[in-house]
C-alpha cells in the first residue's frame, strides 16, 4: 500500500497444539517467520535498516492455551494459491503447529487485528474432587445474572485499576461433567477494542468467596476467532475470498 500498489495478502488459519502450548506469542511469531523461510515462500519485507518480514498476527493467545483458531496475515511478493501455501507450510512446521486453511487475496483488507471481535473458548476445569462439580449450572446462571463483574488489574504504571467485564462475556454454557472435570464453552469479547481473557473469567466464576471450586488445573482451548459482518459473527477467513493476482490470470 505504501507505494500505491495493492498488496497480496495470505490469510492463514492455524492450530496451536499441546506440544507448543507453552510458546509465548513472541516465540510463535519467530517460529512462524522461520517456517516461512523454510517453505521458501516469497514474503515481503519492510524497508529500512533492519528489514523484517511483513507478518501480522491476530490476538495473542496466552501461554498454556491451545487453539484451533489462530490467524496470521502474510504479505507476499507474488500471488500464490492458498492450497499450495498450506501444503508447503505444513511440510516444514514443527509438531504442534498446523495450517488449517489459507486464502490469498490482493483486495484491500482491514488489518486482521482490528477485525477480530469475539472468541469462542472451551475450558475444562480439573477439580480436586467430584463434589466441586455439583451445582455448576446454577452457579453459572448466578454468575451471569450479576449486574457487574469487576476485574482488578494492575496497569502499566503499576497502579490498581478496576473494570466491569460483564459486558464482555457473551455466553457461558456447561458442556458436560465427567468425573471431576467440568467442561464449559464461553463466548468472550476478543480483539483490539474489547478483550477479556478466558482465564480471568474462569477464575471469577470459580473463586466465589463462600464456595470456591478447588481445582488442580485448567485447560483452555480457543475454538475460533470471529469477526463481525452485518451483525453476524463470521470467521476472519470468510471475510477474505481468494482472488488470483492480475499477472496470474
Amino acid at each position: 500500500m505504501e507505494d500505491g500498489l495493492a498488496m497480496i495478502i495470505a490469510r492463514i488459519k492455524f492450530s496451536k497444539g499441546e506440544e507448543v502450548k507453552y510458546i509465548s506469542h513472541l516465540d510463535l511469531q519467530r517460529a512462524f517467520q522461520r517456517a516461512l523461510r523454510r517453505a521458501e515462500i516469497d514474503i515481503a519485507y519492510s524497508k529500512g535498516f533492519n528489514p523484517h518480514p511483513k507478518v501480522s498476527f491476530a490476538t495473542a493467545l496466552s501461554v498454556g492455551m491451545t487453539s484451533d483458531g489462530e490467524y496470521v496475515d502474510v504479505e507476499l511478493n507474488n500471488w500464490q494459491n492458498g492450497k499450495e501455501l498450506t501444503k508447503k507450510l505444513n511440510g516444514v512446521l514443527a509438531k504442534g503447529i498446523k495450517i488449517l486453511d489459507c486464502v490469498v487475496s490482493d483486495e484491500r483488507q482491514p488489518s486482521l487485528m482490528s477485525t477480530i471481535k469475539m472468541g469462542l473458548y472451551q475450558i475444562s476445569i480439573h477439580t480436586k474432587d467430584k463434589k466441586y462439580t455439583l451445582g455448576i449450572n446454577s452457579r453459572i446462571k448466578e454468575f451471569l445474572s450479576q449486574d457487574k463483574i469487576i476485574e482488578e488489574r494492575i496497569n502499566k504504571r503499576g497502579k490498581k485499576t478496576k473494570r466491569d467485564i460483564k459486558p464482555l462475556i457473551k455466553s457461558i454454557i456447561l458442556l458436560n461433567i465427567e468425573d471431576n472435570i467440568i467442561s464449559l464453552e464461553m463466548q468472550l469479547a476478543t480483539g483490539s477494542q474489547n478483550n477479556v481473557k478466558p482465564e480471568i473469567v474462569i477464575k471469577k466464576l470459580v473463586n466465589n468467596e463462600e464456595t470456591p471450586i478447588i481445582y488442580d488445573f485448567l485447560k483452555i482451548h480457543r475454538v475460533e476467532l470471529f469477526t463481525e459482518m452485518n451483525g453476524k459473527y463470521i470467521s476472519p477467513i470468510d471475510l477474505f475470498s481468494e482472488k488470483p493476482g492480475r499477472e496470474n490470470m
Partner: protein
Amino acid sequence: MKSTLENIILPKVKNPIQYIGNELNSVHKNVNKNTIRYAFAFPDIYEIGMSHLGMRILYHLLNEQENIYCERVFSPMVDMEKKLRENSIPLFALETMDPIKNFDFIGFTLQYEMSYTNILNILDLANIPLLSKDRTLEHPFVMAGGPCGYNPEPLADFVDIVVLGEGEEVLLEILEVYRQWKKQKTSRKDFLHSISNIEGVYIPAFYDVEYDEEGKIMGFFPISNDYPPKINKRIIRDLDKSFYPEKMIVPYTSIVHDRIMVEIFRGCTRGCRFCQAGIVYRPVREKSPDTIREIANKLIQSSGYEELSLASLSTSDYTHLIPLVEKLMEDYKDRNIGLSLPSLRIDQFSVKLAEQIQKVRKSGLTFAPEAGTQRLRDVINKGVMEEDILRTVGQAFESGWGTIKLYFMIGLPTETIEDIEGIGNLGEKVLKEYLKVDMEKRNKNIKITLSTSSFVPKPFTPFQWEPQNTMEELREKQIHLKRTIRDRKINYNWHDNKTSFLEAVFSRGDRRLGKVLLKAWEKGCKFDGWNEHFNFNKWLEAFQEVQVDPAFYAYRQRKYDEILPWDFIDIGVTKEFLIREHKNALKGRVTPYCREACVYCGIQDLDGGWSCYDNS
C-alpha cells in the same frame, strides 16, 4: 508424573518452553531394550546450553546411530528445581521426559569451572549418587568432556569416565563397547576396564595420587599395569570428512547465540600465552570453503534461521576467509540472511570485512588487545601493535562505527602499574582517533567500553606455573584503572575477582578439591557463574570445613619440575615447549605465529605425524 509436570508444574514456572523438547529438528525415537540411552547434560540453563556448538554436533551424531538415543538435559532454573523437589519428580530428559536416572549414560560437557556445582546438583536432582564409588548397576555411567576436561582432577570423585579431546569418534567407540557389555551387565568396573585402553579415555578411579608433606603431588600412577600412564587427547584429522549435522534444533525461546553456527576450523595458529584453547585444540585443521558453504546452505534451509555465524577461535586466520565471505554474501544476497564473524583480529582487514557484512546497521565492534602496553602484549605474545589498534579503530570511526569495545585482562604475569594505566591511556588514544574524524562524517553516538577480566592461569599454557594475583591486588588494580579513566565517553567495567579466584583454584586443582565441591554444594552453592546466585562466603566456609587451602592452588608459584595434576594428559604440545614459551614470556620475547615459522610445539609428532601447512 508426566501429567503433574505438564499440567501443574509447567504452567507455574518461568519460561516453561525450556523444559519441553519439541523444538523443530529435535530427535524423537522409539525406545526398545536395545536402545542405548544417552543424556547429554549441560550444567547450566537451556538458553546457555543450547548456544553451545559441541552439544549440537554430538547430539545429532549420536542420534544418527541406530540403537543410540541421545536426549538433552539442562540445569533447571531455581523456581523449577524447587517444584521438582517439592513434587519428588526426578530430573528428566527433554525429548521423552523420562527420568535420566534410567539412562545408560549421562555425559556432561565441562565449559566452565564455575558450573561444577551444577553438575552435582543435576546428579542429585536425578536421584543418581553423587560419588562415582556409590553407583551400582542400576545407575548410568557419568561421563565428562570439554575444555575443562583437560584438568578433570577436581571432578575425579564424581565422574566415571573422562573423554579427552574431540568426542566424535571416541564417543562411538565407547558406546560400541558398552553395547557388548550391556548384554551381560557384569560389573561397572568390568565395563570401565574394557574401555580404559581406548585412546582419549581416562578413568579417574583407576589412578592414584600421592602427596608430599607440603601437599604437592609426589606420584600419579595407574593402580595396575593394565592402565596407560599417559592419556592422549583425541583429534579429528580431517574436518571435511567428519560428521557435521545438516539439521539443527531451532529453539522456540530465544537463546544466547540464536543463529546457525558453522565451524570453519579447529585449533589456532596464534599462540597467545594465556590461552588454553590456543594450545589444547592444536593442530589447526580447516574445513574447505566448499564444505562450509554446503553445510551452511543445508542448515539455513532446514532451520529457517535468518543469521549465520562462522565459528572458530580466530576467524581472521581462516586461509580462504575473503573468498568464503564473498561467496556466502552472494549466496544470501536476496534472502535477508545476516552473516556474523566473531573473533576478528584487530586489523584493517577486519574492519573492511565487518563493513562488508554490516552494510546497513553498524552495531558495534569488539576487539581484544588483552593488555594495555606493548611490553605486556609482548609478554603474552598477543601479536598486535598499538599502531594496528589505533589504525583499526580509526578506520572503524571513519566508516561510521561509534561503539567500540575493548577487552583486557588484569593480573597478567609481570604486570606493573604502568600496564594498568596503559589500558586507560589506550582508551584515550582510541577516543582521540574518533575526534580526528570529520564532525560531519563520524557517528554521533560515541561509546568506548574498556572491559577487564582477571587473569586465571590455566593448565597447558606457558603460564600454568604462575600465581594468580590476590583478590586484593586485583581489586586495587581495578580501582586504580577506574581512577585513571576520566573521560565520560569511556566506560569501564570489570569482572568479579572472587569468581576469578575460584576459577583459578579449580582450573589447576587436584582431586582433593572434590570434597570442597561436595561441601559447597551441600551448603547450597549452585549457578556460581551467575552473580545473583553466587555466594562466596559459603565457598570460603566449605574450604575451611574440609581443611583445604584455596591459596595453595591459586596463589602458589610452581616450579618446572613439580608434578602437575594434569601432567598425565598428552595434548600433543610438549611441556618443553611450554617451558620455553614461559621463559620467552618473562623476557618479553615474541614467538612468531605458526604460519610465519614453525616453533616445534610438539604437535608435529602427533600419533602418525602431523604437518600443519602442507597444502599452502
